[in-house]
């Protein structure tokens, strides 16, 4: 066993806080006075953001993972929490987006501090905190069953958000989501059982040292990957996503599309790059890449055909998830010292980050459009730029990143992946990336062209919108752009503490 890996490190307690603080927030939410619930939730998310930033700082300062042995029990008997470079980045991304979403959602859902308690605010804030805690655990969990518990938390928190409005259609969408997600859970759990039967441990670090090229491990990874793909909505298991993400209220859609689907993706990354013995994954990685390519093309084409803004944005998520899966063939095929030092690895993480910020901004903007003009039919967007200039600016900036135009996080991500593909002579992936960018330009210009055009009759804003809510969406879009100013090279941060690197 590698010394230093299996002991609590200074700052390890931050990882416990990342999981426990949101849970305490949920319990408090149901016990405090009704008028205080928004403040309880916002205070919890503020503390969570500080914890995430402190975690990132601690990982950077020590240039190593943070580790916490829960209860003082060492794996494989006990559970360890561990934050490496990429986990810390994911925690900060999650913390920032949920905190901004909270500002956007404050006062929404019919919240009236002086009236009686209402259903929708209680459910929304509860589930927002639960998603935060569940994602944190997914990022820092190290035990496959502990991660299963995190996935369950995430599912049970995400599904009620879909049907928050309570209409017939959203209930059907939520039910369909639940069926896909639970089928995914069953497959994942089956894989966990196979791993325990074969290795007698579920700890990823211990497993990474014991792993051999045996059938049980391959079967387990195949089962778990299949389950997680259903939860991530990778083509062709994406059918649940568009109605679910488009039917939820805007603040919830932002979280579902930007963050929730990334949780299960993060676990697939861990399985493939930490657990799968090197050299065995080439065929599977190409398979995942092909599904990703299918998602990019099919998702974009379907997005082009949507009449309503929220459905278009939801189909765009299907397409953008596809890019994430190009990491598997590109990082596996790279000639860098380890996959984590490759262009594709950094490109994939950048795509995840840029999409999270841009998509959260886009869904929030879609909600604001709906409030401003009372509908979200793209055909009726003429003159939107005059009615809601900040919202249209938000959509424009987010679109720049989604299309992959410079300077933006989306551009950097696609540029790095493109360079990786061409560097490896895998031109076919490059074609997919370029085609996806063109199609994305097609669907975002369908929104932006009418929004910037002059209407025949002067359009009017139907309802006022608080400037702080418009600014919340704008801030996220600006961050998606700013990510594009990071250096176009592999980040050393993303390779800190990856399991495959530290074990021989």
């Amino acid at each position: 066993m590698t010394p230093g890996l299996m002991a609590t490190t200074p700052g390890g307690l931050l990882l416990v806080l990342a999981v426990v603080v949101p849970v305490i927030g949920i319990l408090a939410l149901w016990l405090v006075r009704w008028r205080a619930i928004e403040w309880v939730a916002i205070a919890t998310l503020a503390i969570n953001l500080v914890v995430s930033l402190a975690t990132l700082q601690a990982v950077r300062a020590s240039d190593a993972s943070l580790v916490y042995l829960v209860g003082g029990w060492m794996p494989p008997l006990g559970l360890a929490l561990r934050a490496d470079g990429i986990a810390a980045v994911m925690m900060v991304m999650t913390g920032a987006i949920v905190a901004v979403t909270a500002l956007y959602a404050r006062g929404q859902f019919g919240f009236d501090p002086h009236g009686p308690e209402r259903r929708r605010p209680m459910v929304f804030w509860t589930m927002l905190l639960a998603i935060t805690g569940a994602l944190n655990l997914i990022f820092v969990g190290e035990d496959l069953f502990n991660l299963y518990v995190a996935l369950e938390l995430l599912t049970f928190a995400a599904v009620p958000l879909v049907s928050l409005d309570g209409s017939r259609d959203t209930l059907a969408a939520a039910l369909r989501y639940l069926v896909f997600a639970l089928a995914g859970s069953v497959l994942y759990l089956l894989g966990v059982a196979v791993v325990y039967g074969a290795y007698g441990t579920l700890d990823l670090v211990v497993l990474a040292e014991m792993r051999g090229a045996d059938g049980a491990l391959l079967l387990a990874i195949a089962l778990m990957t299949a389950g997680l793909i259903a939860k991530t909505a990778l083509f062709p298991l994406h059918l649940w996503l568009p109605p679910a993400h488009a039917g939820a209220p805007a603040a919830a859609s932002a979280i579902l599309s930007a963050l929730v689907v990334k949780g299960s993706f993060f676990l697939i990354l861990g399985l493939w790059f930490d657990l799968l013995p090197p050299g065995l994954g080439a065929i599977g990685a190409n398979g995942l890449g092909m599904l990703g390519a299918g998602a990019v093309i099919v998702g974009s084409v379907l997005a082009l055909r949507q009449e309503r803004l929220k459905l278009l944005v939801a189909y765009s998520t299907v397409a953008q998830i596809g890019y994430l899966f190009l990491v598997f063939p590109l990082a596996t095929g790279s000639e860098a010292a380890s996959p984590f030092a490759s262009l594709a690895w950094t490109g994939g993480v950048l795509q995840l980050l840029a999409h999270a910020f841009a998509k959260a901004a886009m869904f929030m903007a879609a909600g604001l459009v709906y409030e401003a003009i009372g509908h979200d039919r793209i055909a009726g967007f003429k003159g939107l730029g005059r009615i809601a200039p900040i919202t249209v600016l938000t959509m424009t900036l987010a679109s720049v990143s989604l299309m992959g135009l410079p300077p933006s996080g989306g551009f950097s991500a696609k540029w790095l992946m493109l360079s990786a593909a061409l560097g490896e002579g895998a031109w076919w992936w490059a074609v997919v990336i370029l085609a996806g960018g063109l199609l994305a330009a097609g669907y975002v210009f369908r929104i932006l062209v009418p929004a910037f055009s002059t209407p025949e009759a002067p359009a009017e804003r139907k309802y006022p919108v608080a400037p702080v809510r418009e600014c919340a969406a704008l801030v996220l879009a600006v961050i998606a752009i700013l990510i594009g100013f990071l250096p176009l090279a592999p980040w050393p941060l993303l390779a800190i503490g990856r399991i495959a690197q530290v074990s021989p």
Partner: protein
Amino acid sequence: MLDLALDLLITALVIGVALWTIRTRDDFAAIVGFVAYGLLLTLAWARLAAYDVALTEAAIGGGVTGVILLRASVRLKPVTTARTPIGVRVLVGLLCAVISAGLAAVVLLPVSPPPSLAADVRSHLASTGLGNPIAGVLMAYRALDTFLETVVVLLALFGAWSLTPDRAWGGRPGAPIPTASFGPLPLFGRLLIPIGVVIGIYIVWVGADAPGGKFQGATILAAMWILAMMAGLTEAPPIGRWRLRLLLAAGPIVFVAVGVAGIPLAGSFLAYPEALAKPLILLIEVALTLSIAATLGLLVAGPPETAPGTEL
């Protein structure tokens, strides 16, 4: 020889009932099949000497889930489900066959000797004051999982409550049930409930040293509560009531409080000071039993359907 025959019989019955449950076209029959399947699985776990799992399967898998399904099916309009297209059925069958074959291969070609943490689990058990290794795993080694699972159960209840019509928020759970104030059910309730409550508490108590524990015991307590509600002996409390919410949250609150106290007192989150380990674990178990029993009972009762203050 007799053992083998018994095992083969249970296996054949499990598979037979599973197939029948999938094949049957009638909702009610399928649910009955599902409950029977749960009970057969209970026998299978008991044959494997996994008594804790057997108890949980009987209580949760067959019991609570069966009741929830029955209540749901009563409320569904009788529908004749259209037959799934043959192509889809073949595809699903093929996928299931592939997964089963893979699992069979893994199980039939075992690593020798199969690795296990059982020895490790036992050797550290003394420091927790527990006698049942399962309790050791749940309350000490993997206490974080147990803590978060109780939060998952609570979230499932909040998820069910999220389906409440807006006007009914804060009201009593479930549709107003016309209750029978005479007849067999109230009598049955009066006779069975005291016995059931004693059994439930006993199962929680012995869980520290023998098969049993809070989840199984809480399910029995919840079942008694549900029986009392169905017999009209008591009503589910309105979901807006603060004391009810405190009861639901009590388990996780005590758990997290003991966990945090472990940081200064025992050097780690969810660690117990050795002298106090057993009493602290019992404290958590008692609080969790109450919370889980209340949560399960309310899950069965379902989301409120009438506005607060307008019940019969």
